[in-house]
Every structure is written in structure tokens, then in C-alpha cells.
């Protein structure tokens, strides 16, 4: 049991931090521009595929640096020549634009790379178990994912809170008009943030590709969960996104690890139902089976009890 809890904790943190890398970019974009970028997970996929191609010719490490930059540039171009143009028709048009973009990117990826799973693998220096505990390995690559995610969180936090760029970004998030009046080029800041947000998704893709598989459906699998994190964490709050990512990562991992059902709970409470009651299917559902819907349940609860999100300080 202790083995299960220990590894679930580790796995949950790894998943959570990976989700954070995706969510951090999205929350920046969402809070600044008010655009829920539906194509965010597609940039994540793009990062994985670009890094896969680069890694064939120049190795994993070059991919780790170059692929996110490429994704960031693509993101910046999308903002400059797509979103900014569409913006004049309001938020709905922007939303639909990013929605369409997600489909477009998926088709382009399938067109260029094909539909099968790509053998994008971890770099060989990291292909060893970091430690073995109760006979179970913890791959070094997972530890590497963990470190990169934490480094990015610390770096983002420092930039946003300590640097001048961060000051302007923070200002543009909360009072865009005032920031523009003070002579800052807000559209340029928007473009930069969108690009950096996409690049962050790209990094997540580069390091998640080898661990979670590189296939055309990888964006769809992660797409909706990132929005849940951004909303639970609260608009404009990086810390919120960080905490929400960890909560969701741990929630899902532990839900899978613990084989309890509603029935067990009822038995523990000394409540029993007729074995052929119509609701039998409902209360025999086990925790692993409902694991995928738990984040959405949490989302509903947060929206009911704390509409601004856990750390949000601004109404949408």
C-alpha cells in the first residue's frame, strides 16, 4: 500500500507539473486577451512533432531548445496576422478562430507526419531508472520532466514578479488601457505573450512526447483538461494554475490507484441497498472508472462556490 501511495504521489506530481506547463501559457493568454485559446493543446502537439523530426537529425537536446522556439514563432505569427485581425469582430470570432485553428493544426500534422504513432524516444542518457523502490523503477526521464517544469515555474514567477517586463505584462493584464496610455506597446506585449504561451505549450510537448506518446490524438486527449485548470486556478493567477495543476494531477493519479467504489463507502457507513435496485450500476462505479470526470466535477464545484477560481482576483 505504501508503495502505491509513494509512486502515485510521484506520478501525480509529474502529471500535475506537465499540465502546469500547458496551463501556464494558456492562463497568461487567457487573462491578458480574454481569449480561451482552443488551439493551445495543438501547439503542444506541434512541439512534440517538431522535436521528433529535429531529434532524428540533431538529437533530443537540440529539439528541446529549437522546437519550442519554432512553436513560439508560429504562435506569434498566428497572433499578429490571425487573432489581431479577427479581434475586431469580438471575442466570439476569436474563440471560433482558435477552434478552427485546432482542427487545422491537427490536419496539417496528419498531412506532414502521417497518422501513426511516432517513435519519439527519450534521449539515451536519460534511459535508466533513477532509483528503485519496492522493486519499482522511477525513470530518470520522469525526474527530468519534473525538474524542467519546476524550473519553468520559478522562472516565470520571477520574470512576472521581479522584472520590468513582468511589471508591464501584469499591468497589461489588469489595466490594458492605462498601460497603453503610459506609452507601452500593448499589442506587441500581446504578441509576445501569445508567442511565449505557445512556446511553453511547445516545451510541454517536447518533453511529454516521449513519455506519453506522439500521435495525432495527443492534443485532443489533453485539450479540455487545460481549460479546467485555468478556470479552477483563477483568471490571471500563475500560482492558481500551478496549484490547480497539481491538484488535478494528484486527483487523477490517486483516483486510479485507489480501488474504492461508492458501494464500499456505503458499506462502511452501514447503509445497504437492495442488490437489484435500479441504481445498482451507479453505486457500483469504482473510483478508477470515474477518474476522468473528477476534474470536471471539481470545476463545477469551484464555479459554484468560488466563481473567481481558487486564486483568481478578477471577475471574467
Amino acid at each position, binding site marked *: 500500500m505504501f508503495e502505491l501511495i509513494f*509512486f502515485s504521489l510521484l*506520478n501525480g506530481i509529474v502529471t500535475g507539473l506537465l499540465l502546469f506547463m500547458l496551463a501556464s501559457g494558456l492562463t497568461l493568454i487567457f487573462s491578458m486577451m480574454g481569449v480561451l485559446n482552443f488551439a493551445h493543446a495543438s501547439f503542444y502537439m506541434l512541439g512534440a512533432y517538431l522535436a521528433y523530426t529535429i531529434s532524428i537529425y540533431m538529437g533530443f537536446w537540440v529539439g528541446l531548445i529549437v522546437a519550442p522556439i519554432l512553436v513560439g514563432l508560429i504562435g506569434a505569427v498566428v497572433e499578429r496576422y490571425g487573432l489581431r485581425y479577427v479581434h475586431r469582430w469580438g471575442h466570439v470570432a476569436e474563440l471560433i478562430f482558435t477552434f478552427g485553428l485546432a482542427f487545422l493544426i491537427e490536419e496539417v500534422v496528419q498531412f506532414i507526419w502521417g497518422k501513426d504513432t511516432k517513435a519519439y*524516444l527519450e534521449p539515451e542518457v536519460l534511459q535508466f531508472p533513477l532509483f528503485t523502490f519496492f522493486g519499482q523503477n522511477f525513470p530518470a526521464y520522469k525526474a527530468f520532466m519534473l525538474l524542467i517544469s519546476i524550473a519553468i515555474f520559478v522562472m516565470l514567477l520571477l520574470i512576472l514578479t521581479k522584472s520590468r517586463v513582468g511589471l508591464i505584462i501584469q499591468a497589461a493584464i489588469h489595466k490594458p488601457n492605462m498601460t497603453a496610455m503610459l506609452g507601452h506597446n500593448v499589442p506587441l506585449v500581446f504578441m509576445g505573450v501569445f508567442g511565449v504561451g505557445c512556446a511553453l505549450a511547445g516545451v510541454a510537448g517536447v518533453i511529454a512526447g516521449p513519455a506519453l506518446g506522439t500521435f495525432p490524438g495527443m492534443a485532443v486527449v489533453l485539450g479540455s483538461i487545460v481549460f479546467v485548470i485555468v478556470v479552477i486556478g483563477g483568471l490571471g493567477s500563475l500560482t492558481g494554475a500551478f496549484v490547480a495543476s497539481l491538484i488535478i494531477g494528484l486527483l487523477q493519479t490517486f483516483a486510479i490507484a485507489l480501488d474504492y467504489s461508492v458501494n464500499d463507502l456505503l458499506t462502511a457507513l452501514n447503509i445497504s441497498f437492495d442488490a437489484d435496485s435500479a441504481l445498482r450500476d451507479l453505486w457500483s462505479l469504482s473510483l478508477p*472508472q470515474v477518474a476522468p470526470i473528477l476534474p470536471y466535477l471539481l470545476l463545477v464545484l469551484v464555479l459554484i462556490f468560488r466563481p473567481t477560481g481558487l486564486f483568481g482576483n478578477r471577475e471574467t
Partner: protein
Amino acid sequence: MKSIILASAVVSAISAFSAQAADTIKIAFIDPLSGPFAATGTNGLREFEFAADTLVNAKGGVLGGQQFVIVPFDNKISPKESLVQLKRAIGEGIQYIAQGNSSGVANALTDAIKKHNKRNPDKPVLFLNYSAVDPALTNAKCNFWHFRFDANADIKMNALTDVIAQEDGIKKIYLIGQDYSFGKAVAAAAVKFLGEKRPDIEIVGNELHPIGKVKDFTPYATKIRASGADAVITGNWGADMVGLGKAIGDTGLDVPIYTYYAAKNGITKTIGASGKNKIRLVHEGNDNPPLNEEITAYYTGFKAKYPDMDITQYRIANTVGMLADAMEKAGSSDPVAVAKALEGMEFKTLNGDILTMRAEDHQAIQPIRISVHTDENVTFDADNSGFGLVTESTVTAADSALPSTCKMDRPS
């Protein structure tokens, strides 16, 4: 004068078109061509086209020169979307429907086709199920219009458990699968056959996970490891198999994994060395060693045309070949006559196996093989990776056959 010439030109154009239309027999291919399972679907489509071209069209077609045409329809693996595509196919006058990926889809299609044929007896449709292996399709839910060319999940599990039963070292087994009809059928069959053949084996886990929605299989692998299992049985396919195989490898769990679909479409390459001699797969085909020149030529021909793909399902060649034979035998392309010709028909596959389409439930009875994932003695590798499947044991057609509970109504 001019108008007469024009009119005759139009008439001849129309008659030429209808003559051409009469020269073809269309087969609708309804399977995922986008989404997480697109790779599996697309590979199947290419195999169908290749089989139709080389086994039928290149040899002069059927019924005095009619050519097979495969018409693709993307169902996005959704049963609902499949019914829309089925309507489209029927609307285009297509009377042969091929589908295989997902028993959930096959269950929806077989119901819809049965209903359609009841309402439109003059324009019936035949369902060629080349891969959906939910046993119910040839048992409780069987009907005259459905033919299955793959061995069903029970038959495959019967063969798989025969092999497991001989492994004395296995005391604890973990079952994991996708949460839908097929995954449940695999788990039920495993519990049943293991209980009969090796009652001493403890089933330490019987888990179903959402299909195509799991981001990371590591939590499942952790659970399998913690359960102390000596072996894993899974029916996972597509991206779900890659994820599970990788996660199990990452935790350092060194136990055999008995599977249905853990090869090709990128899976073999991704699993690579980490699954060597560990992954065993049950299937109706045979990759290595190649059994004769005919299958070698077919394989090489396919590889020459599609260097990035593999023959993933030999049964597709059987489906196309048997359909052509049945049409010749019936002397017509009318689905009812063809279905009657298919019943009880014997067919020699490219591998040299004898396949019988059992009349009572329309289940193909054929030899079943268990292969191991390895890079030794591999003539035809998968995913151009150097790794491939080498046959370890074969269960004969007679031994693989299981009784059916099918009660079929036949058109008079």
C-alpha cells in the same frame, strides 16, 4: 442536326458511364480515418485497396470482369457517426459494408443493417466484419447479414490461455482493458478460461480504463506492479496499447504481457527493445517465418507500394478473397445469394491455412497463432524497426473452434 449529334453524344456518354458503373462492385469501408485511431483505420483501408487490386482486379475481376472498388467513409470511431456514414453508403447504392475497428461500432452497424434489410428486402446490405471481435456478434446478436472473418475474442483468449496454462511460473495475473464491449469481453473470457484451465492462478486485478482518453498509463502500471502480478493480459489497441506498453516498461516490471494488438502502426517501433521476448500476441495471421512464396510475394508487394506501412491484418486479404469466391460461386453480386454462398465455404488463405465460414453463426474458423515480439529470426519486421512477430505456437482450426449460441433467421 447539331442537336441530334449532341443528344447522341449525351446518350452515349450516359450509357458509357452506366456501363462503367455496372463493371464495378463497391465496398464501403467504414472505419476511423481521423482521431486517435486513425493510423489503424488508414492502414486497414490501404490493405483493403491492395487486396482488391492484387487478388481480384489484377486477375480480371469477378463475374466476368467486374472490378472491386473500396469506398472510404470516416466514422471517427463513433457508433453514431458510423450510422450516418452507413446511410450515406447505402444512399450511394453500396451493398457491401466492411468495418472492423471497435466492436462498439460493429454492434451499432449490425443492428442498423438488420433493420435496413428488413425494411428494404429488395436492396439488402451485407456486413463484412473483418476485425471487431466482440463474441456477442456471432452469439446472442448474430444475424444472417453479418460475417466475421477474424477469430472472436473468446476464440483468441482460448488459444492465449492454452499457452499461459503451460507457464508454471505464472501465479498471479492482471487483466486490463478498454472500457467498452470488447474490453469487457476480453476480461470475461480471461476469467472464464483461466478458471477452467488454471484454477490456481489468482486474478489480482481486473481493470477497465476509458478508451482513447487516458493521458498517462503510469498510474495503471504502478498499480499492476504493486499487485505483484506475474503476467498481464490486455486487449488494448492503438494509442492505448502504446501508452500501456511503455508505462509498464518504464516501471521496470519484467513480466510477460499477453495481448491482441500490440504490434505495427508504430507500436512495435515505440516498444522496441523494452518489450523483447516479453510481449506475446494472439492473431490469425503469421509474419515470421514466412510460410510460403505466395504470402512472401503479397507482403513484399505491399511493402513496395506502402514502405511506411505493414500488413497488419491478413484477414483483410481473406475477406476480399472470400467475397470474390462467393460471388463466383453464386454467379451474382446479389447480397442474399453471396451470403448463402459464403455460408460453410472453405477458403485457402495466402498462408496456406484452410478457413471455414461456419454456417450456423457466420464465424470464420481458422488456425490461431501466438507470436512473440523480438528482433531475432525476423524476415518481415514491423514499422521498419528490426523488431517483428515470430510465431511461437499454433492452435489448429479444429481446436480453436468454440460452440456458438447463435439462432439465426435466414431469408427464404
